[in-house]
């Protein structure tokens, strides 16, 4: 009984970002057709080439079927029952005022993302996106002094059309997969980052995504271009209200890295995971890919995945430049009825390229957690090197942990190593903690944090603290 009460309490308090914001939102009628695509494009005042891009993608999407190869039970998605555009900033737009609706300010304050620059965490510029629209981008002027462009992608289309046109779809073409095609047709706001040659971005750039409106999906698009010898660290966070319905989130992130440039991309994904009975939650079906275009370029993906009912994504790297280096660090936690099929693809094309994959999966409750990854070494990728290590931790006897690595080597000078283990928390470690007066719940938290440390260490400071807390919360009630 006592345990049940405790579990209930945990289940109820667990997702603290589950509130809704009462704000006048303009929501497009449900359904998807060419007219809807044209309407979105018109609302954003887009040039003709972008509309053509959207329409081509839409037509391709129509010719495709939703894939089913993931180790997932995906609820049926009715693409006609979703609204593809929701604008919570309508009020200010109709008033003609530049002021942001105080409700929106309050929402982001509550999420710990103050939009007033004087309150902001030092050293982080934020692009705050709610539903389909970017609410505000902070520190734009200060960044502009260095020539850095950091704004929403809709603004970038208007202000820097050449840059966007050159790179949009260059890393993730709309034909890449079903959800990429869908996103390319209906994408709304996301962030655009351009770091000019030789510039080291002085602050962390970050985008915070929030789904608020009911019956909508979020289809943001992020494009990061880091020119030669430049550096940027980019963070992404996300939350959504608690609802019984599944909400679709199909985003694309494209990164282009120039010669000797470095990009660090970190995600703390905390979409609403659904309740303890598996009702509701966000379907997180995302395509993320970076192109290491120049020689000696570097890219690292770090992700902490704790939210979403279904996570299906593979942040990938195409190592095209010689001596380019890519890293992928991931912690994926699933509890209750969550499902995750995530991992990475490392495609070695250049000479002496190097990639590292560290993946830690933690499954609890009745969840299913899979690592799926591809390491491909092309014919010309002499001296390619990959090391992959995938560990899975099982908490409870009804969950699943799976590892599906794919390795394809076409070059005799490549060295590719993969290792994976699956086990539960050792009784000895738990006993040791118990002996020292640490309760089992806390001990599990401690051990899990230690287990995920290799990845958490890669996160920027503020994020690491948040991720650690999140990890504990996500697993509360998982042992007992």
């Amino acid at each position, binding site marked *: 009984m006592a345990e049940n009460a405790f579990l209930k309490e945990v289940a109820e308090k667990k997702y603290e970002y589950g509130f809704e914001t009462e704000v006048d939102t303009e929501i497009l009628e449900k359904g998807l057709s060419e007219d809807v695509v044209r309407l979105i494009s018109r609302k954003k005042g887009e040039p003709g080439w972008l509309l053509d891009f959207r329409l081509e993608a839409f037509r391709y999407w129509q010719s495709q079927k939703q894939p089913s190869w993931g180790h997932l039970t995906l609820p049926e998605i009715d693409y006609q029952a979703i609204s593809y555009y929701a604008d919570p900033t309508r009020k200010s737009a109709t008033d003609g005022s530049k002021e942001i609706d105080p409700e929106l300010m309050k929402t982001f304050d509550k999420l710990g993302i103050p939009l007033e620059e004087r309150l902001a965490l030092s050293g982080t510029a934020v692009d705050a996106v709610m539903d389909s629209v970017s609410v505000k981008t902070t520190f734009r002027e200060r960044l502009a002094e260095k020539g850095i462009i950091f704004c929403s992608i809709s603004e970038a289309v208007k202000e820097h059309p050449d840059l966007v046109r050159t790179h949009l779809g260059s890393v993730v073409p709309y034909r890449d997969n079903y959800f990429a095609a869908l996103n390319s047709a209906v994408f709304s706001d996301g962030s655009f980052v351009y770091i000019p040659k030789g510039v080291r971005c002085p602050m962390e750039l970050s985008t915070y995504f929030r789904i608020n409106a009911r019956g909508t999906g979020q289809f943001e698009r992020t494009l990061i271009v880091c020119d030669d010898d430049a550096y940027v660290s980019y963070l992404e966070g996300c939350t959504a209200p608690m609802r019984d319905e599944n909400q679709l989130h199909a985003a694309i992130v494209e990164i282009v890295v120039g010669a000797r440039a470095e990009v660090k991309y970190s995600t703390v994904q905390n979409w609403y995971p659904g309740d303890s009975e598996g009702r509701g939650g966000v379907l997180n079906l995302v395509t993320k890919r970076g192109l290491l275009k120049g020689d000696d370029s570097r890219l690292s993906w770090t992700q902490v995945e704790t939210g979403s009912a279904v996570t299906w994504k593979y942040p990938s790297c195409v190592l095209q430049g010689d001596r380019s280096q890519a890293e992928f660090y991931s912690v994926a936690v699933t509890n209750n009825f969550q499902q995750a099929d995530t991992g990475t693809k490392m495609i070695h094309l250049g000479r002496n390229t190097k990639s590292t994959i560290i993946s830690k999966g933690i499954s609890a409750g009745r969840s299913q957690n899979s690592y799926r990854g591809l390491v491909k070494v092309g014919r010309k990728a002499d001296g390619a090197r990959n090391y992959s290590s995938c560990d899975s931790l099982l908490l409870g*006897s009804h969950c*699943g942990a*799976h590892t599906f690595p794919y*390795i394809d080597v076409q070059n005799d000078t490549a060295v590719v190593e993969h290792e994976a283990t699956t086990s539960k928390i050792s009784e000895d470690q738990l006993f040791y903690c118990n002996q020292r007066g640490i309760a089992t719940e806390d001990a599990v938290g401690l051990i899990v944090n230690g287990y995920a440390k290799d990845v958490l260490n890669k996160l920027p400071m503020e994020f690491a603290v948040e991720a650690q807390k999140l990890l504990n919360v996500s697993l509360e009630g998982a042992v007992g």
Partner: protein
Amino acid sequence: MSEQQYIDFYRAERDTIFARSDERLNALRDGACALLERKGFPTMKEERYRYTDVARDFAPDYGISLTPAEDAAPCPEEYGTLADASDPVVALNTMLAMSCRVVRIGRGERPEHPIQITNMLRGEHPEMVCRRLMIIVEEGAEADVIITDRAVSKQSFLTNQVIEVFVADGARLNLYEIEETHLLCTRYSSLFMQLGRGCSVHHTSLTLFNGHSRNRTDVALCGEYSEVVMNGCVIADKMQHTDCNTLIDHRVPHCDSRQLYKYVLDDSAVGAFAGRILVREGAQKTSSQETNANLCATKTARMFTQPMLEIYADDVKCSHGSTVGQMNEDALFYMRQRGISEAEARLLLKSAFITEVVECIPLASLRDRLQVLVDRRLKGELSKCEGCKLCE
């Protein structure tokens, strides 16, 4: 031939086939034919056939013999109960196999000598062979079974074999498969094993010479306290293509499985290894280990490897490791310093690499013999059985 041509052939010859073979074999034919018709050959989009183009391998116009084995024993009732009836390649075999060879080791029996089955491919024309074999090891019995595949005519052959192995409680089986054919031979092998309680199975497969091979091995651990060891080595060059696809299904608690597969690829050879370990809910205290190590010796060789863990129980110890690499330059340098030629040094390293698999073979006489075969193979010599006049 296309799947439809195989089906048409079966329908045309159905009466002849039924008249000549056992009723237990006949009972499953129509169902298998219907499945093949419905599904067609698996395409490379299907997870278990990602690395092998079935339609291409079955495309040539092979002759099909409808002569059953002269001394065929009655077919046991277990026939067809283990083989995966939903696999179209298995279905093709079920549809056309004319007889089923049976090795039965009676309760508690321990034959003094190993049992050897030699499959000889011989003929004037290209031919497809649908082989069917059952190995039944009854309670407490122990046996060594060696299966060798050879081709004695320079002719194209397509073998589509299905082997069903039943290992009853407390039984032990060491099963060896040695493939030594030639570049014109294509082999599809589907091996299904079922283990009872407290069994031990040691399976070794060696692919020394072949054209295209696709070996599917499925093991179901159905009784507690059983162990299975599956080792394999592949030495391939020229245009050889070898795809080993394994599944170890831990259905009950307290079982152990270990796998070690090693590939040496030269020239334009293609190797593939996909090993899936499935630990079902409730199969606690499972211990499972899978290792796949590969050596690519040329730029044109290609290796695919895909070790998979699918685990639904928490109190388990499972791991897999996979590597693709080349010869250790330091080791080569060390040997050359000591006056060993580069070719010899490379040979030594390859031999040492493969030896790990050969050394695990429990049957001493076979182990020594295989080491010789492996070394010869690595030297590029065609292996010939001593004293045999067939291939000369």
